[in-house]
């Protein structure tokens, strides 16, 4: 199976500043993949490179095995929704659908019409007067009705209120369930990702800090708290991601596939939020990872 997005040493420069540098990653196809990272990590740049709106200054990128925007077929296979769901403010809902039909040979007019109907949108209304949530739904409808194999969404829900965000994800998840389209979406809202995504890629500073199945990541990470230890030793099958020491307490975040049997630790599970934050801190160099079995002198 070809990857949804595959990059090797990918880089993009704006003037003298590298927005993305030496980025090598493989994002699986047929999944709902969450792309997470701090502001300026290069997420938007990566997604723009994937749809061919930008060209790389270094390295290479392929999407569904092809070069981005290289052929009409390649354009057809990928649907893209840019940040803030841009539409043409002076055009009506119906005009947007007509334009979609004109521009896309595989346009699914039936789907588009029934979606607009279900959303309760007035076809004669100009998109500039729609609410943020309605505009996002219109933009999503356009991206889905071209029947792509892969949908790429850049921060699709960041600007929406909680209800509109929920409805957007509901539409997106229903589309995934009924049409089997793969999705790559970037977001800061980790709680939403936890519901919607089954695969996670954390990018920090243009590099991949963490990647894997959401369920497996949650099952293999634990928080250990116990009496303070100045020298932390963990069994060889555990990797310490972060550690912190209070006056009398030591807290570790460890990754392991094995049960934790040391009775001195209280073990608790982590939310996806905790997990992502820990890897962002680690990648930023706040607290370097300590390898398995390594004694940490403090």
């Amino acid at each position, binding site marked *: 199976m070809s990857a949804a997005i595959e990059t090797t040493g990918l880089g993009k420069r704006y003037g003298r500043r590298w927005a993305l540098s030496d980025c090598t990653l493989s994002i699986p196809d047929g999944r709902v993949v969450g792309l997470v990272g701090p502001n300026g990590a290069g997420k938007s740049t990566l997604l723009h490179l994937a749809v061919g709106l930008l060209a790389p200054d270094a390295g290479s990128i392929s999407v569904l095995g092809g070069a981005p925007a290289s052929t009409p077929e390649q354009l057809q296979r990928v649907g893209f929704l840019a940040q803030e769901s841009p539409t043409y403010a002076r055009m009506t809902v119906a005009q947007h659908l007509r334009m979609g039909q004109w521009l896309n040979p595989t346009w699914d007019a039936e789907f588009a019409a029934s979606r607009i109907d279900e959303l309760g949108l007035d076809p004669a209304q100009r998109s500039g007067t729609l609410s943020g949530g309605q505009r996002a739904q219109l933009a999503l409808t356009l991206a889905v009705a071209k029947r792509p194999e892969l949908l790429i969404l850049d921060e699709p829900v960041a600007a929406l209120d909680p209800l509109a965000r929920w409805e957007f994800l509901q539409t997106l998840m229903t589309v995934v369930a009924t049409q089997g389209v793969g999705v790559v979406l970037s977001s800061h809202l980790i709680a939403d990702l936890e519901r919607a995504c089954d695969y996670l890629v954390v990018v920090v500073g243009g590099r991949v800090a963490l990647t894997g199945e959401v369920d497996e990541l949650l099952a293999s990470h634990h928080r250990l708290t116990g009496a303070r230890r100045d020298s932390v030793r963990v069994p060889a099958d555990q990797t310490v991601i972060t550690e912190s020491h209070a006056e009398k307490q030591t807290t570790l975040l460890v990754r392991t596939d*094995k049960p934790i049997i040391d009775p001195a630790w209280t073990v608790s599970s982590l939310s996806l939020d905790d997990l992502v934050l820990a890897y962002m801190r680690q990648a930023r160099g706040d607290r370097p990872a300590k390898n398995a079995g390594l004694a940490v002198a403090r």
Partner: protein
Amino acid sequence: MIEFHLDSSSGVPTYAQLVQQVHQALQLGMLEPGDRLPTAVQVVSSLAINPNTVLKAYRDLEREGLVRARPGLGTFVVGQLPRTDPAAQAKFRKSMASWLRSARDAGLTADEIEAIYHTTFRDAFGVEGVA
């Protein structure tokens, strides 16, 4: 037919919450053999969750012998779980209440009692890998 709900602050993975709710519905007699579970698309559109999560939960239930997927028709309940005996519930609630009272009378605070409960519960059931 049952309706699923999610507790996003519970720390329990979504698929495990779905499995748990089917277990509870079976124990309470809300689901019986022959009943149909909601389709993946129905669950996805009512909870806005990833379809693979629903399929994973249903696969787990199928492995346990509680449900069976019939292609094109849906997922049906085929197994049963022992119903919770109301008398047993009442008995343990009573003995727990008297245990709590004696702990309080011994001078333990609510937080301390809760900590004892959680540690002992974990030890007994091996939750979170603590055997």
